[in-house]
């Protein structure tokens, strides 16, 4: 396990290959467009402005307060969805040819695809800071917590990608099952609605047990209030550790078997 961890750190350290792979995937996604990944940011901002306007009226909330809440939550949710969706196809479709014809450690492929999503997320985070400056709610401490969050979220995303990609390669039904689960999680997670709208009992059952919520809330409270709640911080930290240890175990046990599962 320690060797596997050293291996993981080595792959992270040799950033040239996974960065090239991430940039290549991103380039192809926005091929022949002038704005490139800015389209993603522009599209999401437009959508959230419209949703924010209507929902703030529906829930009788101030748009200036509601829009940042919606924006900060939605961009993390969007990244989670993108990471999970790509993880379900990573070994079985996206890098099938590569795994069949050259030995490359699965972590390299996972880091590459997560890095691609994080490049877009960083664009969104720059927008988030602009929103904070515009609404005069900027806390300097936020920056430190956002950096801590990004680090933990990056490690979690890589580990989750490896776990899901391996699972979906072995059991092909999982890809479809995960898509169904994701859409359910969206409705149960306070991304576009506020957790305080629930009663205390419901909040404990539906929200506090939802790990995705803690990731979103860590980021959102860091930006909105300058720091996350201790509970959010601990859940994210412990989840990251559990995901990392599980992915190291799976990598040690199954990384050499992936090619056989492709046949």
């Amino acid at each position, binding site marked *: 396990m320690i060797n596997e961890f050293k291996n993981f750190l080595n792959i992270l350290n040799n950033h*040239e*290959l996974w960065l*090239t*792979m991430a940039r*290549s*995937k991103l*380039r*192809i996604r926005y*091929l022949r467009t002038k704005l490139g990944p800015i389209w993603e940011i522009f599209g999401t901002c437009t959508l959230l402005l419209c949703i924010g306007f209507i929902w703030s009226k529906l829930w009788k909330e101030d748009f200036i307060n509601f829009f940042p809440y919606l924006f900060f939550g939605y961009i993390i949710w969007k990244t989670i969805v993108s990471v999970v969706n790509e993880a379900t196809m990573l070994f079985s479709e996206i*890098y099938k*040819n*590569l*795994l*069949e*014809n*050259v*030995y*490359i450690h699965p972590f390299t492929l996972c880091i590459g695809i997560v890095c691609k999503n994080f490049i877009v997320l960083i664009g969104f985070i720059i927008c988030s800071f602009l929103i904070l400056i515009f609404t005069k709610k900027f806390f300097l401490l936020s920056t430190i917590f956002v950096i801590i969050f990004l680090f933990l979220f990056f490690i979690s995303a890589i580990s989750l990608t490896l776990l899901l990609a391996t699972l979906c390669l*072995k*059991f*092909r*039904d*999982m890809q479809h099952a995960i898509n169904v689960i994701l859409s359910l999680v969206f409705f149960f997670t306070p991304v576009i609605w506020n957790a305080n709208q629930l009663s205390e009992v419901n909040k404990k059952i539906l929200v506090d047990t939802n790990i995705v919520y803690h990731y979103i809330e860590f980021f959102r409270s860091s930006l909105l209030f300058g720091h996350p709640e201790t509970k959010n911080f601990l859940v994210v930290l412990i989840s990251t550790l559990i995901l990392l240890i599980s992915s190291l175990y799976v990598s040690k046990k199954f990384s*050499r*078997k992936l*090619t*056989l*599962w492709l*046949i």
Partner: protein
Amino acid sequence: MKIKVEELNLTYPITPGESFLKKKGLIETFIDKFKKNKKKKIKINPENKHAKINALKNINFQLEEGDKLGLVGLNGSGKSTLLKCLSGILDPDLGSKIIINGSYLPIINPINFSEQEDTVLNNLILIAQIFGFKFNYVKENADLILNFCELTEYSNYPFQTLSTGMRFKLIFSICFLLKRDNYFIDEFLTTGDEKFQNKGFKLINEEMSDSTIVLCSHSQEIIKKFCNKILVLNKGEQVFFGNTQKGLECFNAIINNNLK
């Protein structure tokens, strides 16, 4: 000794095409939980058992520095599988021994992992990095590679606009201009035009004389021209290892036997 293979065996399972849910998997495990105390009928269904294939059986050979080994055999004899085992893509069975001294480069369908819509230059950088070469080293040698394969003017074209032959030239140039100690090549050297093939063979003979190459090919001409040793495979078993001429006679005997 550059490459040593001892008692190499490979068995791999063939996953049935049916759904995981239908197999002894989620649903049955779930139902079994509730049927814990009930008497179970024992069903024996041989189709449920995972089929296994003995793709390679007891392969043994040793290559010295500069050896060029030709791998020959009929379709399904295990040539590509052996190359994949040497390259670390497939994990052989316990007890198998593969020793490779120095760096190595597997050239097995490299065109398949290119990004078709990206430019030729970006693909050059991506493929070379996947092969394990450092970014700066690849960047420094990019012009040399594009010049050698006569594709300098196409460097900003999408990779998919290149013909099969042009793609072959690019991959060939990446592999042999950025050097490695050992090469494992699958059905690769026969794709380009004759002019480039001659240029390529000249490069390999002059610059790669120290490199150990394992080449898998159906072309006896290429094997004769290129290899000093031969390994004949038949249904995953090693039939012959040694001199090229005798090996080709043995391979022809297998072909004739099959024709009868």
